[in-house]
């Protein structure tokens, strides 16, 4: 069964993380098309441009220059055109307050960036699978944080 190609937008200023992400996608069997931006302003410009087709899914880093992940998430969820876009938040650290705040602001999932590459790939696959299956409604709170098995 040939899966429809998924358009993925990645917002992360860290070059290494972008490499890991790209490498992970290459190893996956799901056909994907990755676009990467490196700060919040770039992200919002891209999304607000009417000429651009919206991606199927956005992976959003929190710590970015110019406009951080929190600000971007709020703008997206307050925008009628964008608020249905599934946003998966990526972060190195895990802080419960931050996680709660993201959930309340309408993020789809939270992923703590794993230190093992295998787990990294696994969790990317997990999130893409969920979105590909059309599950874009916000899960219950206890399922909000995605983890590798």
């Amino acid at each position, binding site marked *: 069964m040939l899966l429809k190609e998924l358009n993925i937008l990645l917002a992360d200023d860290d070059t*290494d993380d972008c490499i*890991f992400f790209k*490498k992970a996608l290459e190893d996956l069997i799901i056909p994907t098309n990755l676009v990467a931006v490196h700060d919040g302003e770039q992200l919002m410009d891209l999304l607000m441009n009417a000429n651009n087709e919206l991606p199927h899914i956005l992976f959003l880093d929190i710590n970015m220059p110019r406009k951080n992940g929190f600000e971007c998430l709020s703008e997206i969820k307050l925008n009628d055109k964008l608020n249905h876009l599934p946003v998966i938040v990526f972060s190195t*650290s895990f*802080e419960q307050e931050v996680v709660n705040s993201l959930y309340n602001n309408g993020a789809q999932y939270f992923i703590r960036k794993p230190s*093992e*590459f*295998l787990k990294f790939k696994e969790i990317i696959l997990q999130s893409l699978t969920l979105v590909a299956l059309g599950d874009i409604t916000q899960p219950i709170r*206890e399922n909000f944080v995605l983890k590798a*098995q």
Partner: protein
Amino acid sequence: MVIENEKKNSDKKFFANKELVAQDEEKEKRSAELTIANKELAFQNDEKEKRAAELVIANKELAFQNDEKEKRAEELIIANKELAFQNDEKEKRAAELTIANKELAFQNDEKEKRAAELVIANKELAFQNDEKEKRAEELIIANKELAFQNDEKEKRAAELTIANKELAFQNDEKEKRAAELVIANKELAFQNDEKEKRAEELIIANKELAFQNDEKEKRAAELTIANKELAFQNDEKEKRAAELVIANKELAFQNDEKEKRAEELIIANKELAFQNDEKEKRAAELVIANKELLAFTYVSGHDLQEPLRKIQTFATILLESENENLSEDGKYNFQRMQLAAGRMQQLIDDLLAFSRISTTELKFEKIELSVIIEEVKAELRDTIQEKLATIETTGLGSANIIAFQFRQLMYNLISNALKFSNPGVQSNIIIRSRIVTGSQLNIEKLSSEKTYCHITIKDNGIGFEPHFSERIFEVFQKLHGKEVYGGTGIGLAIVKKIVENHNGTIIATSELSKGATFDIYIPAN
């Protein structure tokens, strides 16, 4: 013939004289009887006067002896009536004597007329009879004598009449006096009755007064006893007052000493206050320095995470892609490097948590403990499933807590309970809470007046020796080698710090392989 006539006349005269003499004798007898009767009356009158005087005395006597006097008064009335009756009889007799005297006076007048006729006849007879003349002269003299005597008797009768009237008057007076005495007696009798009634009333009044008197005497006796008691108490109080005066002097002396001491203390206090201020300044400086240090720990820890993660990730990529090109020794060294990186990651995580609970704002809110525990259970879901652990929660209420810190606390304790579970025994964790007053607990660090939220986390894991119950809360203290049970030794230090941030206390109780119990007490309000 003439001589014979003369003889007849002389006889007639002789018989007439005899008759006169007889009449005179009768009159004398009668007069003597009257005299005796009068004397008798006079005597009786005297007796009556004496009797009246006695009656006055008797009446006076009767005034005091009422009944006797009334009887005597009645007798007097009867006696008086008898006297009155006798007086009437005497008056009648006197009246009869008066009439008899008047008859005698009339007869005397007639006799004087006859005597005058006889003088003429005698003068005529002088011639005829000297004897007759002499006798006639003697008769005249005798008649004169009788007339004189009659006059005397008449005078005496008149005197008697006057004397009788006087007696009658005196009798009337005495009757009046007797009647007055009767009235006086009745009055006295009435007064006597009144006085008797009054006397009876007075007797009753006297009895009442006597009763009151007895009562007053009893009261007086009681008061006397009470007075003695009061006098005794007064004496005691005076003694006490004297003692107090002495005690007061002693106290005044002590007071002076204390004032001197107080002045010294004031100076010492000022010195201490100055030193205290200095120390507070120093403490404030230290608090700032400490916060800076913790903030530095947090920031550095946070920033260290990312390069470490990248090292780890690249290591895994390298190990995966170059696995075939590595020698066995190279693979082993690679694994050791990854383990070390893993421990470093754990250490950074724990240090971040430790510094976070010291630097972030302490925001207390009323939160259901079950919400916190459910969040922690969700976070630890995989481990719980892996260990087939059960977590029982009973009677969980709400508590006034700093939410993210308390979540960290629960996470650390529950993850510890899971980590130190007994191999081969299904892990069972029991969490419960209740509200208690400090006085029920008898724990040194807690106020007996406050109410506390008491939360218990009890497991059936490997436990620890009782003497480690305090040491386990110190930073970097571990009871097991890192090869057996991983960890940094910061987890329970964080727990203790969080409990202290909540102004509470935590007590660990355990025996080796008999599970561990953590009791947390935080103020309920």
